[in-house]
């Protein structure tokens, strides 16, 4: 609410400032206008007074001339009809030619003796004008001018007088007077002006004005004495001379009867001491002239600014209102949340407490008191460490409290509480420091988590873990033992496999040798005898000879069979001549039997172990057999090479090839496996690459210990 008021006041203040600024601007603008009109007025007055002065002195010379004419002088020298007539003629001439009201001649006593209006109804002739100042001064020898209302004609005019001297110019005989009308002057010089123009005599009688109602009124109120003096002078007729109602407010402002303000300025007319030309300008009129265009220009701007200011104020007010309501809502929410927090603090099933800087408990949650078995009143205000075991108390006072109050945070501090019933409760306490505005810790908010159960479980878990670890160690040992067993078994198996192959080879060799050496030799011996018998019998009995020949042929076939058999079991050449010769023999044997171009190339191969040679021979045999059997190759290349590491046997064909992944399992599976097995047992590295249409490549690398 207060904020609204402040905003409103501020808005108003801003509005007022704007307005005041605007007004000040307007005021100074108006002042400037006033000054300008004043200076204008003075300029005008200056002009007017000068013109007046000129006009009002116009006939000074004329009257002097008139006074010097001999016709007028003669009247006084010799007063008769003739001279009077002549003087009147002269006066007429002057009046006519100079466009005067009237011109006349007075004697020494002020009695008019000649006049241009002698024939008019208001003729002066015989009139005594001795009361007129122009007479009294003229008779004293001073020419003069005088403004007055004609007593006979009741017309305003300016009177010029001049004494008439005798021919010697020593004695004053009378006074000549010319009266000129001022009506024309008033009409031409004053009437055009808008402002009120007053031509006043020194006492303030308004003699001329462009406002006819002011004529012969008093510009300022006068006392009786002055009034009677005016009446006595008969300068302005018979009166009454009423007060026009003007009064001065200050130097520049004049009020009229209605209180209307006029700007006043006045200037004296030279030659007429005390006579003033006064200018009164309607202040409102001027203001209107000033404010008219000002309002026209400034008005809309002011309106727009006002509207904008209004809108701005409205918007600000709205914003403020919104902010205000938001704050109120936030405050309300804060209150709710505080209440909730309080509720939360108390009702949440967690041990919460707060202590002050001395370590005294300020708040505890419901759960805290429930868990500890105390009443809240027994707890609040007590030192926290009162509820600790001595060890925890010492730990808290010596280590944790100083640390906490310096950094404002601690986490998972193990404390042991003592419940009211004496039970102990192991907890982990975490707390942070609640700080005041200056950032100083004022109290703590702490959470204690009961870990008694957890610690028990932990211990059990550790025990279980230990047990598990011993189990796993045991198991590991078992696995190790079993692995060793397995490895031994595998090694045994390998050995067995090796032995099987070796014994197989041995067996084969034995059988082959038996066939070759025994059966073969016997057959050979038989053949020798058979041939001998045949040769012997041929001479005696041709028939018997033939039979013996057949026998011999049969023995030949048998020998061949036996040889082939032995060769297939194990070629003697391998044992007798070594791997190279054996492979060469094998390759050419294959070629002879199949008509496939079989090429064998080799380096100089050192003598190698028999088992190794056997393995390589068998691999070569198997590979070439496979090629011949399955690949439709036209060329098979067998190479036995040495490299830095050992011996490499490769068998390459240009046949149809196969997909190793598929075929390996079926057709060539066994052969492939046996090649691998042999290579493996010989400590060699077996490789086989093939692709459909790309031929087959088999290699077996055997590392020779100690190199070559």
């Amino acid at each position: 609410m207060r904020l609204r008021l402040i905003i409103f006041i501020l808005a108003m203040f801003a509005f007022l400032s704007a307005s005041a600024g605007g007004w000040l601007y307007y005021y100074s603008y108006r002042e400037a206008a006033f000054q300008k009109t004043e200076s204008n007025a003075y300029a005008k007055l200056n002009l007017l007074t000068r013109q007046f002065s000129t006009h009002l002195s116009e006939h000074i010379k004329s009257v002097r001339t008139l006074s010097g004419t001999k016709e007028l002088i003669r009247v006084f020298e010799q007063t008769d009809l003739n001279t009077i007539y002549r003087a009147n003629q002269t006066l007429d001439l002057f009046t006519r030619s100079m466009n005067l009201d009237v011109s006349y001649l007075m004697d020494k006593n002020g009695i008019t003796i000649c006049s241009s209006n002698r024939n008019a109804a208001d003729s002066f002739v015989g009139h005594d004008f001795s009361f007129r100042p122009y007479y009294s001064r003229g008779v004293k020898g001073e020419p003069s001018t005088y403004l007055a209302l004609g007593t006979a004609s009741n017309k305003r005019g300016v009177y010029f007088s001049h004494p008439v001297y005798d021919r010697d110019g020593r004695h004053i005989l009378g006074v000549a007077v010319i009266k000129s009308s001022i009506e024309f002057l008033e009409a031409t010089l004053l009437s055009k002006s808008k402002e009120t123009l007053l031509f006043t005599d020194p006492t303030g009688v308004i003699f001329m004005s462009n406002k006819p109602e002011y004529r012969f009124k008093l510009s300022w109120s006068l006392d009786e004495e002055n009034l009677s003096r005016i009446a006595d002078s008969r300068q302005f007729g018979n009166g009454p001379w009423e007060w026009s109602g003007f009064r001065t407010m200050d130097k520049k402002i004049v009020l009229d009867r209605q209180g209307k303000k006029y700007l006043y300025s006045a200037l004296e007319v030279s030659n007429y001491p005390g006579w003033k030309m006064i200018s009164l300008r309607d202040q409102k009129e001027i203001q209107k002239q000033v404010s008219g265009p000002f309002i026209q220009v400034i008005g809309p701007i002011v309106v727009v600014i006002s509207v904008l200011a209004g809108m701005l104020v409205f918007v600000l007010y709205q914003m403020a209102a919104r902010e205000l309501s938001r704050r109120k809502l936030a405050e309300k929410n804060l209150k709710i949340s505080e209440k909730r927090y309080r509720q939360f603090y108390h009702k949440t099933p967690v041990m919460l407490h707060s202590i002050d800087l001395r370590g005294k408990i300020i708040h505890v949650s419901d759960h805290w008191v429930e868990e500890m078995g105390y009443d809240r009143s027994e707890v609040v205000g007590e030192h926290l460490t009162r509820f600790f075991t001595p060890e925890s108390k010492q730990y808290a006072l010596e280590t944790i409290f100083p640390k906490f109050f310096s950094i404002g945070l601690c986490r998972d501090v193990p404390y042991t509480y003592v419940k009211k019933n004496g039970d102990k409760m192991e907890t982990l306490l975490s707390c942070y420091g609640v700080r005041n505005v200056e950032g100083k810790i004022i109290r703590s908010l702490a959470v204690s988590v009961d870990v008694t159960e957890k610690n028990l479980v932990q211990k059990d878990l550790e025990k279980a873990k230990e047990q598990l670890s011993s189990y796993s160690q045991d198991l590991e040992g078992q696995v190790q033992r079993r692995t060793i067993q397995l490895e031994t078994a595998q090694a045994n198996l390998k050995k067995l496999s090796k032995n099987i192959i070796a014994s197989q080879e041995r067996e084969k060799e034995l059988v082959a040798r038996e066939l070759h050496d025994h059966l073969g030799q016997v057959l050979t011996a038989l053949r020798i005898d058979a041939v001998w018998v045949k040769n012997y019998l041929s001479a005696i009995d041709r028939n018997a000879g033939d039979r013996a020949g057949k026998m011999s042929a049969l023995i030949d076939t048998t020998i061949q069979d036996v040889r082939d058999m032995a060769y297939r079991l194990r070629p003697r050449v391998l044992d007798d001549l070594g791997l190279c010769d054996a492979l060469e023999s094998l390759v050419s044997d294959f070629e002879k039997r199949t008509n496939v171009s079989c090429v064998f190339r080799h380096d100089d191969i050192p003598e190698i172990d028999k088992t190794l040679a056997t393995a390589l021979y068998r691999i070569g045999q198997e590979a070439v057999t496979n090629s011949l059997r399955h690949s439709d190759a036209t060329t098979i290349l067998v190479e036995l090479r040495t490299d830095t590491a050992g011996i490499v046997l490769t068998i390459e064909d240009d046949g149809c090839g196969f997909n190793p992944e598929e075929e390996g399992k079926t057709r060539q599976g066994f052969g492939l496996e046996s090649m691998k097995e042999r290579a493996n047992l010989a400590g060699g590295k077996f490789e086989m690459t093939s692709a459909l249409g790309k031929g087959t490549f088999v290699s077996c690398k055997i590392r020779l210990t100690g190199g070559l």
Partner: protein
Amino acid sequence: MIRVLLADDHSIVREGLRKVLEDDNDIKVIAEAPDGETAFDKAISEHPDVAVIDISMPGMDGLEVATRMSSYCPQIPVLILTMHEEEQYVIRAIEAGAMGYVTKQSAPEQLVAAVKKIHNGGRYLTEKAGEALALRLIRGNKDKSLTESLSMRELQVLRKLATGSTNREIATSYNISVKTVDTYRSRLLKKLNLRNNSDLSRYAIQNKLVEF
């Protein structure tokens, strides 16, 4: 009279061979040996004109005997007897210094002639053995890289063709079909980048694959 040392570990065979040899009146088996050591000793002690040694014997084998004899008693020509038909043995035997080579199987027909030939200072080799030896020589020559790509059989056919044998003759001598010979021939032409038989002949002569 040709005095012969006969070494064979099989007594029956030895007996048969002795009969074969002694059927010829010019030949007399003056000593017999059942193993290599004995054979070598007898050769040294008995000074036979010709030594007929079985290649496969327990202990020192025939090749070893031939090697030793060629250094200790090079004047005694050695004829190697063997059960084996593989050319590899022939080559080894010749390399070991033997002057002839006869399979036991063909002994009744060839042994006497062989003994007589080597006794006269000649070599005794069957046609097959001779060819194998020639081929080994060709193969042994490292310069002839082109022949490396040829198989034994291809080399054989090439040599035959180069010496003017007909396909039929070749087929007969290697106990293969005429068609197979033709296959070998075209394979040879392709491998050696040649056009006809005369090209083959020229090639064989230029590369010393055949002797004239």
